């Protein structure tokens, strides 16, 4: 088992609302993520991909099956698995700098070191000059960059991302893709990235795991590494389009199935 390799072993999860019947969200999900690999979880709404991410993050208890990171089972949230949410989840009462500093304060890093590191990260995400702004004063893209900076500050080995660019407009999203890839080149990490956008998955990930409609299972895993290691130009090639088509066809059936289950 590699240092931050992730192993999902036959993970089941049942969602139990206060009122109503329990629902099986995940059914026997097994998946391996190698160290420093970028894996995308792709599937229709309600397939449980976010749930799987939250189980990995330790925010939901693993009741059936096993999840281990670096050989150790997941028992709760921790700074080894940083998370970025779709709604940015910045502390609205803290400034940009205070948000980025939060994880470092929890690590009990000495003050001078913290300040330096926070400054580095704010620069990394191109938000110089906004250190003392509040989240309410920032655009969506800027907020997401603060969220990424905050998470990267504590140098987690694994990065969990739950549809992080879903709330952004198409142009900002494209820019954020490029920024994320640049950051990953500088500080490679193990990434588990949840999305329902097929192109985004193919563009960013090394492998894409397609999930079925609820109850979620792994349908198929597709290799999406660019043939010459160059993602930026890959996006315009016919190989890219072929990959996207292939994956879309896999997802399409599940999307229809999810739609029918919803209407039923």
């Amino acid at each position: 088992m590699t240092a931050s390799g992730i192993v999902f072993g036959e993970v089941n999860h049942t969602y139990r609302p206060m009122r109503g019947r329990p629902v099986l969200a995940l059914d026997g999900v097994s998946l391996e993520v190698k160290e420093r690999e970028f894996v995308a979880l792709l599937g229709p709404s309600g397939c449980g991909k976010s749930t799987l991410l939250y189980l990995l993050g330790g925010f939901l208890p693993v009741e059936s099956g096993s999840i281990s990171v670096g050989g150790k089972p997941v028992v709760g949230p921790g700074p080894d698995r940083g998370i970025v949410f779709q709604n940015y989840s910045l502390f609205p009462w803290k400034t940009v700098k205070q948000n980025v500093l939060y994880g470092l304060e929890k690590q009990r890093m000495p003050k001078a070191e913290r300040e330096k590191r926070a400054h580095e990260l704010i620069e990394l995400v191109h938000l110089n000059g906004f250190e003392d702004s509040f989240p309410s004063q920032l655009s969506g893209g800027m907020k997401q960059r603060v969220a990424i900076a905050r998470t990267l500050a504590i140098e987690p080995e694994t990065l969990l991302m739950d549809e992080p660019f879903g709330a952004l407009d198409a142009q900002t999203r494209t820019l954020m893709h490029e920024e994320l890839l640049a950051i990953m080149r500088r500080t490679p990490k193990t990434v588990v990235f949840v999305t329902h956008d097929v192109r985004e998955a193919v563009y960013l990930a090394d492998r894409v795991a397609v999930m079925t409609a609820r109850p979620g299972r792994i349908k198929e895993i597709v290799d999406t590494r660019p043939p010459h290691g160059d993602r930026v130009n890959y996006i315009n090639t016919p190989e890219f389009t072929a990959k996207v088509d292939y994956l879309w066809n896999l997802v399409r059936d599940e999307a229809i199935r999810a739609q029918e289950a919803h209407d039923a």
Partner: protein
Amino acid sequence: MTTTNNVFVRYLPLLLLAILWEIAPRLHFVDPSELPPLSAVAKAWWSLLLDGEGKTWLSPFLNGSLWTNGVSSFINWFFGLGGSILIGIALGVMMAWSRTVEDVASPLVKALYPMPKSALIPVMILWLGLGAGSKIASIGLSCLLPVILSAYNGARGVDQTLIWSAQACGANQREVLWEVILPGAMPDILAGIRNAIAISFIVLVASELLVGQRGLGYLISFLGEGGVYDAMFAVVITVSALGFFADRAYLYFMRRTLVWRE
């Protein structure tokens, strides 16, 4: 709601009403024994302020009716409201934090909510006598529920992903409570406190009108019974002004604390 930005124009109607208050009794449009002219009220206010006896030059003020009764009212108000804020926030957040506390406390809170809290004043008098104790308890109990509810709703309304983000940054349970839930609940809590401040004034005046020998409410009824109506009006205006400025001051404090909301 739209209003003009010019302060003078905005409050001009009040100036006009003040002028009317002066003129109408003087010209006998209304009975001046029932509505003394504004100038008489102002004069009465001034003499109340300085009607104390004593040797030092400050004595007329410090021993004067307004100051002594004002201090008495302030003590009742401060401890009643202060207690309800501290206990209310603690209870409300606890109810949101711990399922057991919520299961035990929330049916009680829901049952007590529609009851007019001022009905508790006689019980408090029964238990704690005619003095400050019953008034502080009455104010405290009346203000407690709005603060509990706002703290509860505020704490429950904190986004789950905020809590998870803090945990992924390495925060433990205690840190999540103090550094995420409490600040996250602040907007609701501060709004609930504004409500509680208004209630505290009402219960303060009501309890002092009812029983006791001290306080601004007592002073109003004492002057009324004595037929000294211009002084009575003066104290009513004083109490109203205190309520008004307390609200305005608090609003200013609230806006500055929540400056991050934009």
